[in-house]
């Protein structure tokens, strides 16, 4: 059996491990257009900040590929997939054949689409090479503008602030983190960032990038000019799915997958930021472009490629960040715009602490935690397992809320013990 994996990050690497766990003989080839063994993509901001070195970014131990008999092809791009004859075509024209294929090509940053965007000094922050290029500019640069108030842009801004740069975040919408927070918590996090020296301006967008070859500044849509030497664009990512464009593999938001993470073509699977899966909460097709989801999808796709037949329950939006020591966690559906939801908030005046829960009927569907994040996973378990929380509504916001308050509700749920606690070690509760 020949397994071919395109993409060598969260999704690809987890697939490889899963395949090897089940099939010690099959040939596994991993191909990536980056020139590094798998690294922790999310930590490029820590690398940029100087809190992690390049060698600390390795996702797996040095001999991982060797020990698992994996052929690793680096610095080569797959141009197209030809499922009718089970081959992929590389950028150098070479073809590789497969019996089972995983497309784990991730995503690429979206750009602004404004004049002057080809100048040197503009980055969509995604790869280790991006971070290295930015570092090269730092000795001569003083001011960085971040366009977009999403996680990636803020992480880059946070890193560059730690490097001593003058960082300003410019957001089109009225607030930062609009995808994962509500107004009040966004305001709180924004205030915290500003207190720590990061500037934030809202309601503005770039119109034109200024400078000769290098970025020297920007013209905003209010006709104001700002000087800067580095621009980070945090406008989100789009899935890398050009390689299936001319094939019969179906795409929508991303490459469409079924419950087994299989595409519409037999023997072709997809996982990670390129894969469209079902959202656990809304039931709608979506891409939850997150490390956690990519890793889980890769693992399950890998198992299925090796013949397991394991169902993927669906993806869930859940993210955690820490800026200057303030932790922020967002789970599930938190941007309520329509009717039919109940929201409850607890906040302490004067301190950076915020807790919000979002309910739909008898189900918990979303949580925002700022400051105190202990027991966050218990909420996620309630969301994930679609637990009827009508009996515990009034204690969900309490600071003493913890696992023991919901253990019975959770343990009744089918599959809970199988996936989480079946080591035989949980013995309790007569």
């Amino acid at each position, binding site marked *: 059996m020949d397994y071919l994996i395109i993409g060598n990050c969260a999704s690809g690497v987890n697939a490889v491990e899963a395949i090897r766990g089940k099939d010690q003989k099959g040939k596994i080839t991993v191909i990536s257009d980056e020139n590094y063994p798998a690294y922790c993509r999310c930590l490029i901001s*820590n690398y940029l900040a100087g809190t992690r070195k390049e060698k600390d970014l390795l996702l797996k131990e040095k001999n991982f590929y060797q020990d698992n008999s994996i052929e690793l092809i680096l610095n080569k791009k797959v141009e197209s997939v030809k499922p009718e004859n089970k081959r992929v075509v590389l950028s150098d024209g070479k073809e590789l054949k497969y019996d089972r294929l995983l497309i784990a090509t991730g995503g690429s940053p979206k750009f602004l689409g404004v004049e002057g965007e080809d100048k040197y000094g503009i980055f969509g922050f995604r790869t280790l090479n991006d971070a290295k290029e930015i570092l090269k500019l730092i000795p001569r640069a003083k001011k960085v503008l971040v366009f977009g108030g999403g996680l990636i842009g803020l992480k880059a801004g946070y890193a560059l602030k730690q490097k001593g740069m003058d960082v300003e975040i410019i957001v089109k919408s009225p607030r930062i983190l609009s995808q994962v927070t509500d107004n009040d918590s966004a305001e709180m996090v924004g205030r915290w960032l500003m207190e720590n020296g990061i500037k934030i301006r809202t309601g503005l967008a770039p119109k034109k990038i200024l400078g000769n070859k290098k970025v020297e500044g920007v013209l905003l849509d209010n006709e104001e000019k700002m000087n800067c030497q580095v621009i980070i664009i945090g406008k989100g990512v789009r899935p890398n799915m050009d390689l299936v464009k001319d094939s019969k593999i179906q795409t929508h938001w991303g490459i469409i997958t079924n419950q087994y993470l299989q595409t519409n073509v037999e023997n072709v699977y997809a996982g990670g930021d390129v894969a469209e899966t079902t959202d656990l909460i809304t039931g709608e097709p979506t891409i939850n472009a997150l490390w*956690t989801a990519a890793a889980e999808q890769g693992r399950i796709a890998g198992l299925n490629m090796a013949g397991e037949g394991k169902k993927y329950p669906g993806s869930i939006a859940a993210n*955690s960040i820490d800026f200057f020591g303030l932790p922020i*966690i967002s789970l599930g559906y938190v941007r309520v715009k329509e009717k039919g939801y109940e929201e409850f908030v607890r906040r302490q005046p004067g301190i950076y602490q915020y807790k919000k829960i979002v309910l739909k009927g008898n189900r918990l569907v979303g949580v925002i935690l700022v400051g105190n994040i202990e027991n966050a996973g218990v909420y996620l378990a309630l969301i994930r397992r679609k637990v009827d929380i009508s009996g515990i509504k009034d204690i969900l916001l309490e600071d003493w809320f913890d696992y023991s308050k919901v253990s019975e509700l959770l343990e009744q749920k089918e599959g809970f013990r199988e996936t989480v*606690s079946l080591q035989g070690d949980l013995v309790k*509760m007569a």
Partner: protein
Amino acid sequence: MKRLFVDVERCLSCRSCEIACAVEHSQSKDLFSSLKEEPGPRSRTKVERDTKLQTFPLQCRHCEEPYCIDACISGAVSKDPETGLVILDEDKCVGCWMCVMVCPFGVIRPAKEKKIALRCDLCQDNEIPACVAACPTKALFFGELKDFKKKLLERKDTKSKVKV
């Protein structure tokens, strides 16, 4: 495979296990000196009280399919294939709290002062975990499942059910 078991009904919520755990994971491993350490000692086990007011100590379950491994963005969490223990490499941990976010038991705790997540390692260097050694009522048991079951059966008054 040796595991940590809790005979729930014997727990008197004295929290000796928490203290022993914190001391064991401190720099000095000594209660008196550890209290002066910066950052201070922190427990990786916690005594919780359920809705029937029964208390019990809870710590990492070393899950079969741990959510925390998928969630770790720094490759710091792994499952030892031999012992089954889910281990955090504290040097690799960046304190992003993704594991805190996904642990269904809420037993991974953010140590903001150290910027790492704290979790039970079953005191790997010791013969028995510190919490077990410290439990005055023997509510905590470290050993094989069959031996724990035997122990429960020996206790005639037992109402605890062994759920596995």
